[in-house]
C-alpha cells in the first residue's frame, strides 16, 4: 500500500460504509415493497371474499346484492376496481361498470384458495387481481337446486399505479437519505481519521528530526497509539545502540590518541635530542634502534586497541573450535625465539599435548602473543621464562617481576572499568594485559595473575571443564 494512508483509509471506509448502506437500502426497499404488495393483496382478497359472500343462489337464480357494499371503485368514473363473476362452466354472471364490457382473465383456478396474478388494465395501466372459486350461499339454505350447483369464479382486479407510485417515492426518499448518510459519514470519517492520525504525523516529524547530533533524544512511547509502541520501542533501542556505538568510536579514537601520545613523545624527543648535535655513528645507531622499538610499541598498542574495541563492540563472532593449547603456544612462541635469545633468556617448556579446549583460535592467539611479548620484554636479562600448557591451562611464568600484585590487578582492568583516563602502564606498556583479560572473558576462561616484586610473575589462562574439547 503506497500513497497516503489517510486517503486510503477514508476511501476504503467510505466504500465499505456505502456498500453496507446500499445493501441495507436494498433490503429495506425489498421488505417495504413486499409488505405493501402483501397488504394490497390482502385488501383484494378481503374485498373478493366479501363480494363472494353476498352472492346468493335462490330458486330464481343468482342474486348479487351489492347495496351494502362500497362499490364506488367499480364505477366507470373511478375505474379503480374491476369485478367479473362467472359460473365455473363459462357464462359470465356479472361485469362491473368499470370493465365497460371487457373481460378479466380467469386463470386456472382448480386449486383451492385465492389466486393472485398481475394483469394489464385498460389504457396500459398495470393492475393486480385475485381470482376466487367459491360456492354461493343458498337461499333458502336447505334448498336443492339440482344441476345449478356449480361453483362460481370471481376475479377482482385493482389498479396498482398508486401503490407503484408510493413505492417509487419511497425508493427515492430512501436513496436520498442513504446518499446523504454516505456523504455525512464520509465527511465525519475524514475528520476523525485526520484527527486520529495526528499522533502518527507527530511521530513522523519527530523521526525526521533525528540525526547524528541528537542521539541522546528518544521518541516518546506514551504519546503514540498502542499499535505503534513496539515500533517506537524498537526505534529507541536502535537509537541507543547507535549512540553507544558512536560513543565507543569516540572513546576508541580518544584512547588511541591518548595511548599513542607517550610513545610519540618518546619518538619525538629521542629524534630531537639526537639531532641537536653532532654525534657518533654508534649514537645514531642507538637512537635509530630506540626509535624502532618505540614504533613497535605503537604498532602493538594500535593492534591491541583495535582488538579490544572489536571485542567490546561484539563485532567479532566468537568461534568455538577445538584448539590444542600446546600447539598454539608453540606456534605463538616462534617469533619470540630470537628476541628472547638476544636477552639471554632461558626458556623452560612444560607442555602436555593432550590439552584441548573449545575456543576462538584467533583471539586466543592474540592473547597468548601479548603474554609472550610481555614476558620476553620484561623478564630480567638472563632470566627464565617457563611456558606451560596443561589440559585446560595455558601459562607463562617469568622471573624478574617488577610489578606488585596490586599493580598487576590494576593493569587487567583498564578497559573493563571503562576508565580511559587511568591507563596503568608502568612496566607493561601497550594494554596487553587488559586485552588478555578481555579475551579471557570473551572465551569464558579465567585469567589468573600472581605477581611477586623481585620474584616470579605468573600469568595463566584457565579454561573451565565444560570447554574441554
Amino acid at each position, binding site marked *: 500500500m503506497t500513497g497516503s494512508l489517510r486517503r486510503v483509509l477514508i476511501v476504503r471506509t467510505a466504500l465499505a460504509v456505502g456498500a453496507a448502506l446500499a445493501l441495507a437500502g436494498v433490503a429495506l426497499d425489498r421488505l417495504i415493497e413486499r409488505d405493501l404488495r402483501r397488504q394490497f393483496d390482502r385488501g383484494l382478497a378481503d374485498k373478493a371474499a366479501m363480494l363472494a359472500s353476498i352472492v346468493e343462489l335462490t330458486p330464481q337464480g343468482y342474486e348479487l346484492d351489492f347495496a351494502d357494499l362500497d362499490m364506488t371503485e367499480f364505477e366507470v368514473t373511478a375505474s379503480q376496481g374491476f369485478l367479473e363473476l362467472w359460473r365455473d362452466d363459462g357464462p359470465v354472471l356479472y361485469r362491473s361498470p368499470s370493465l365497460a364490457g371487457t373481460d378479466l382473465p380467469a386463470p386456472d383456478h382448480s386449486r383451492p384458495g385465492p389466486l393472485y396474478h398481475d394483469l394489464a388494465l385498460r389504457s396500459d395501466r398495470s393492475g393486480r387481481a385475485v381470482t376466487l372459486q367459491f360456492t354461493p350461499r343458498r337461499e333458502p339454505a336447505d334448498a336443492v337446486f339440482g344441476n345449478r350447483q356449480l361453483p362460481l369464479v370471481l376475479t377482482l382486479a385493482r389498479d396498482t399505479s398508486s401503490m407503484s407510485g408510493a413505492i417509487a417515492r419511497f425508493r427515492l426518499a430512501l436513496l436520498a437519505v442513504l446518499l446523504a448518510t454516505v456523504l455525512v459519514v464520509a465527511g465525519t470519517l475524514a475528520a476523525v481519521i485526520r484527527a486520529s492520525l495526528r499522533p502518527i504525523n507527530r511521530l513522523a516529524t519527530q523521526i525526521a528530526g533525528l540525526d547524528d547530533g541528537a542521539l541522546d533524544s528518544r521518541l516518546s512511547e506514551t504519546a503514540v497509539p498502542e499499535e505503534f509502541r513496539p515500533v517506537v520501542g524498537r526505534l529507541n533501542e536502535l537509537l541507543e545502540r547507535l549512540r553507544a556505538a558512536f560513543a565507543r568510536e569516540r572513546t576508541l579514537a580518544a584512547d588511541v590518541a591518548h595511548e599513542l*601520545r607517550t610513545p*610519540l613523545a618518546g619518538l619525538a624527543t629521542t629524534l630531537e635530542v639526537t639531532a641537536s648535535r653532532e654525534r657518533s655513528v654508534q649514537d645514531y645507531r642507538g637512537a635509530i634502534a630506540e626509535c624502532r622499538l618505540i614504533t613497535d610499541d605503537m604498532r602493538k598498542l594500535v593492534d591491541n586497541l583495535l582488538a579490544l574495541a572489536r571485542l567490546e563492540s561484539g563485532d567479532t563472532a566468537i568461534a568455538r573450535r577445538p584448539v590444542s593449547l600446546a600447539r598454539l603456544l608453540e606456534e605463538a612462541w616462534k617469533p619470540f625465539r630470537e628476541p628472547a635469545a638476544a636477552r639471554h633468556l632461558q626458556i623452560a617448556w612444560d607442555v602436555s599435548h593432550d590439552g584441548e579446549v573449545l575456543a576462538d583460535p584467533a583471539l586466543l592467539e592474540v592473547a597468548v602473543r601479548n603474554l609472550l611479548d610481555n614476558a620476553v620484554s620484561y623478564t630480567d636479562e638472563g632470566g627464565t621464562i617457563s611456558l606451560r600448557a596443561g589440559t585446560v591451562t595455558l601459562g607463562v611464568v617469568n622471573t624478574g617481576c617488577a610489578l606488585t600484585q596490586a599493580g598487576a590487578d590494576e593493569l587487567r582492568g583498564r578497559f573493563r572499568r571503562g576508565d580511559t*583516563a587511568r591507563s596503568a602502564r608502568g612496566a607493561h606498556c601497550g594494554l596487553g594485559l587488559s586485552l588478555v583479560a578481555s579475551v579471557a572473558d570473551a572465551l569464558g576462561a579465567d585469567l589468573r595473575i600472581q605477581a611477586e616484586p623481585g620474584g616470579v610473575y605468573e600469568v595463566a589462562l584457565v579454561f573451565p571443564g565444560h570447554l574441554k574439547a
Partner: protein
Amino acid sequence: MRLLVIEDYQPLQNSVVRGLREAGYAVDATGDGEEGLWFATSAEYDVIVLDLMLPGLDGLTLLQRLRRRGHSAHVLVMTARDAVADRVRGLEQGADDYLVKPFAFAELLARVRALVRRKYGAKSPLIRVGDLEVDTCARTVRRAQQPVDLTAREFALLEFLALNQGRVISRAEIWEHLYDARAESTSNTIDVFVGTLRRKLEAGGGSRLIHTRRGMGYQLGETP
C-alpha cells in the same frame, strides 16, 4: 642545576635525561612513583619533571604529598592528558607548569630554564656581575663584551653561582645542585671544577670574580 625526571616510559625517559644532561644539568631519573617521591625528598632538586601516569604512586598523588610536606621544588608536569580539567587540576595540586605530550624537547628545556629562573627569583635571563654577562636564556657568557667559551657543565656552575651572586655557596650546595645521584666524587672534584671555570673567566685578563671563602665555599661577585 639539578633536576629529577620521573617518567616510566623508558625511551622517553632516556631521551629527556640525555637532552637535559647535554644542556648542562645534573639529572636523576626514575620510572617509579614511590621511588620518585623518595628521590624528591632526599635531595635538593631545582626542578622536578613529573609524568602523571606512573606505576606505584601516580603523579598527582606524588605531587600532593610533596606539597603537603612543604616541599618547594618547582614541578613541571608532563602528561598525555590534555583536557582543560586535567590541566587545571594539575596546576591546582601544586604543579608549576604543565606540558602535554608529545612536545618539542626545546620547549621542555625552555620551560625548565624558566622554572629555574623563577626558583632563584631572577626575572631576567641576563645576569650581570661586573663586566661579566651571563645569558641564561642563550646560554652564553661574555666578559668585557668578549664571548667566553664554556662547556655546558661549566655554564651550569657559573649560572648557579650567578643566580646566587653575593651569597657564599658551600661545596655541599654545589655538589647537591650540579651533580646527579650517580656521581661519585670528592670535594676535590668541585675545587678542580671551580678552578677550571675561574681560569676561563680570567683568561681575557679580567679580575677574579669567583672568590674562595676558606672553610665556607665560593662566592661570585666583583669584590671579595
